[in-house]
């Protein structure tokens, strides 16, 4: 019994395995797309030489001045060198939700209802954050 408790649980190992694979794929995509970006193979939405003019602006002013996309608007611009990078970044940011979805069937099979509920609510929270519905107002 003690030996069993010393080992990581089935859901913990499943989470770790997906995290491991996804993290390496995500990092690889991040690095490769960045090399593509700075090499200038694809035209950028904001030309690299002009970027220093804008990176000192508040994000809201940056969006306003350049008519840059918000929310998932970047997905329509992945043909541009700079927005291509968002593919890898979104993969890293989406990995946690995927891990939760992977362990959910295991938790359901074990009838671990408190953690089933926690996992479902967490996925909903992450989906809400990722949806782009939430907007901050102010300055």
């Amino acid at each position, binding site marked *: 019994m003690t030996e069993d408790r010393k080992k990581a649980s089935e859901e913990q190992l499943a989470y770790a395995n997906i995290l491991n694979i996804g993290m390496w794929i995500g990092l690889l995509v991040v690095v490769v797309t960045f090399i593509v970006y700075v090499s200038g193979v694809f035209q950028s939405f904001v030309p690299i030489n002009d970027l*220093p003019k804008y*990176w000192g602006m508040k994000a809201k002013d940056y969006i306003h001045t350049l008519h840059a996309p918000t929310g998932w608007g970047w997905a329509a611009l992945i043909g541009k060198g700079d927005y291509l990078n968002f593919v890898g970044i979104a993969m890293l940011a989406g990995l946690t939700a995927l891990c939760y979805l992977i362990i959910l069937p295991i938790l359901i099979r074990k009838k671990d209802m408190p953690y089933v509920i926690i996992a479902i609510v967490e996925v909903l929270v992450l989906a809400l954050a990722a949806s782009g519905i939430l907007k901050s107002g102010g300055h």
Partner: protein
Amino acid sequence: MINSKKLFKILVIIFSLSLLALFWNLSSFASEGQEVAKEVAKEAVSASSTPWWVWPLSLLIVTFILGILAVLGGVGGGVLFVPIVGGFFPFHLDFVRGAGLLVALAGALAAGPGLLKRNLASLRLALPVALIASSAAIVGAMIGLALPTNVVQTLLGATIIFIVIIMASARKSDFPKVPHPDKLSQSLHIMGIYREESLGKDVEWHIHRTPQGLALFIVIGIMAGMFGLGAGWANVPVLNLLMGAPLKISVATSKFLLSITDTSAAWVYLNQGAVLPMIVVPSIVGIMLGSIVGVKILAKAKPKAIKWMVIGLLFFAGIRALLKGLGIWK
């Protein structure tokens, strides 16, 4: 004759002074860059004399050094990244915080699988805490992006100085006593056993004061999202000293926890346009390479001396953020 101890101290002092000089120079360049950006906002013209590639290259070098220091000083990369890059580079704090979250996220994602497989990070402990912290981090991110920059900068400076005080004074307990696990932790079966190699025996652990701990994670989550700092500096004391998890379990679970907390806040920054790949990618690569080198140096270095150097660096960056926010040190 200079013995190795003295030589090491001299090297630490020279290294610290070099870093300060580097940041000072970056700061003067950065002021120029930010002035240029302000001009663009008004006139859409630029007169920057610094080529664009200088900044990502500088960022790569600085984050490489920060990656080494983070490992040696026992802190997360995010907590060093935001005040230092925000204080001494020309990028707006919105983009720095967005990058800070992704830097902390990448580090946590990289460390997570190993910690989970070795049963040091506890999924049962992390999941309820993460739900609270990640929800609060969304709120924090929205507040941070809505507030005026000088207010966020000032609050960031005050927070960093507070973190310095915690780092310099907080006690840690390897095996806190938990006489009676509380009802909530018992009903959620938050407990475990891990192999403590230094003692050569298995350690069984439980937690207590779970409701109080969860309540504190609301504050931690808001701060993580607001400042993009990562939150290991706060996670570990709460898990270890308040909730009674062993230190190793607390450190590992905290690291894993960041992968969930920072994810929710990172999405908010991403959706609000506060993520620039030109800042994010060199930072992630620099911190990760630095961490790998840091782990190798750790075997030979004196962590205590490095810890104080990191505390000094953080204090300097905190003062810089505070004075920048108050408009005293532009």
